[in-house]
């Protein structure tokens, strides 16, 4: 089993700083700057390696994997509603979070592959960008089905789709992919890589520090909601990763690519999804979904999930 990467220790440092009530604070502008950097860098990196593929051949595979990810909320919703006894709105909103993806978890997956010197398909970045969309739509439909009449208000689909399709992460990821692709094709990567590739890990470290601070502030919200959310927050991503591993293997991705797909299916959103759900399902309680997503699943994924999904991918590909 792979050792813990130094970069994820920054998450622990953040959690500890939060727990001892340190006055350490990441300025808001830095947090936003780091996340802009990471999204561009992930897109750019992916785009550069996509330059080696025939786009027309890749696109159908990519889209299939994105579409299949829309099933994840369908799996989560009944568990949340009938086992967890959450309201319709909360179940739909949490399902949308778990169907959506976390760029930082993906980044930790990338970091592991780089450390292990493993190949992966460059277009995974594009898949991640697109994968934000279907889960948010499915989740909203689930939360809303038959509920609109009750609350008397209609789902603002226009506003919601605008929010989803023009959100910061989609724009930067897709933009980064295009520019990276162009740079790769015209053989002009060189001057930009010093920033968007070489500094990736260092920036990720700072971002994880802030995630730790944020997570420690959210843990109390989760603790109140009891044991179900904790179990769900650990077990569900593993189930989703199994599904993702299977899909990746079925589409003949490399071992690295399969693992990244599993990470995408397993990871859950705490940035794009909350913003979308605020518009689509305002009666859902964001403390629940963000608490589970950031307080439980995110740390589980970066410490145990990512190495586990790598083992799963090796196993299905018969690698040792």
């Amino acid at each position, binding site marked *: 089993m792979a050792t813990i990467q130094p970069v994820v220790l920054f998450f622990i440092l953040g959690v500890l700083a939060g727990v001892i009530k340190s006055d350490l604070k990441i300025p808001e502008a830095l947090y936003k700057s780091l996340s802009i950097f990471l999204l561009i860098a992930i897109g750019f990196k992916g785009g550069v390696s996509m330059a080696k593929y025939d786009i027309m051949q890749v696109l159908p595979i990519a889209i299939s994997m994105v579409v299949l990810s829309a099933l994840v909320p369908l799996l989560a919703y009944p568990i949340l509603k009938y086992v967890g006894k959450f309201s319709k709105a909360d179940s739909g909103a949490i399902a949308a979070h778990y169907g959506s993806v976390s760029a930082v978890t993906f980044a930790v997956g990338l970091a592991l592959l780089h450390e292990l010197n493993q190949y992966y398909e460059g277009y995974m970045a594009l898949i991640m960008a697109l994968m934000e969309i279907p889960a948010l739509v499915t989740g909203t439909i689930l939360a809303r089905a038959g509920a609109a009449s009750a609350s008397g208000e209609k789902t603002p689909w226009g506003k919601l789709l605008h929010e989803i399709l023009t959100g910061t992460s989609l724009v930067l990821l897709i933009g980064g992919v295009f520019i990276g692709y162009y740079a790769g094709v015209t053989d002009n990567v060189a001057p930009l890589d010093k920033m968007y590739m070489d500094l990736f890990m260092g920036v990720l470290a700072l971002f994880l520090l802030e995630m730790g601070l*944020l997570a420690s502030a959210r843990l109390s919200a989760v603790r109140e909601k009891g044991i179900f959310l904790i179990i769900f927050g650990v077990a569900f991503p593993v189930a989703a990763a199994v599904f993702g591993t299977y899909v990746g293997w079925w589409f003949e991705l490399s071992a690295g690519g399969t693992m990244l797909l599993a990470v995408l299916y397993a990871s859950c959103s705490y940035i794009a999804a909350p913003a979308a759900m*605020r518009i689509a399902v305002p009666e859902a309680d964001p403390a629940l979904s963000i608490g589970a997503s950031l307080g439980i699943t995110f740390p589980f994924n970066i410490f145990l999930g990512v190495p586990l999904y790598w083992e799963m991918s090796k196993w299905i590909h018969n690698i040792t």
Partner: protein
Amino acid sequence: MKRIDIVVGADKIDELVDILLENKIRGYSIIRRISGLGARGHRTPEDVLNEEENVLVFLVCENDTAKALVESLQPKLKGFGGVCIVSDCLWVEGAAVSY
């Protein structure tokens, strides 16, 4: 003269300003990044995961303008949430009249 203080969600500010301009308001001030508690619970713009920002619009105008404005605003306030209050004040002459 009247001073009017309105706190609304940041997403409502454009609509609110339009109403102000329609009511011939010629001066107002906006303070951003306001947190608080209201009917929709706590709202804190500092929370990077859940940015809910309020803004305060502060304006001084003549009594009649204030009356007209309040009448236009009232039907909209349900959608805006927040708070809108009116109080009396004295305008110190000197600066260019912007009310």
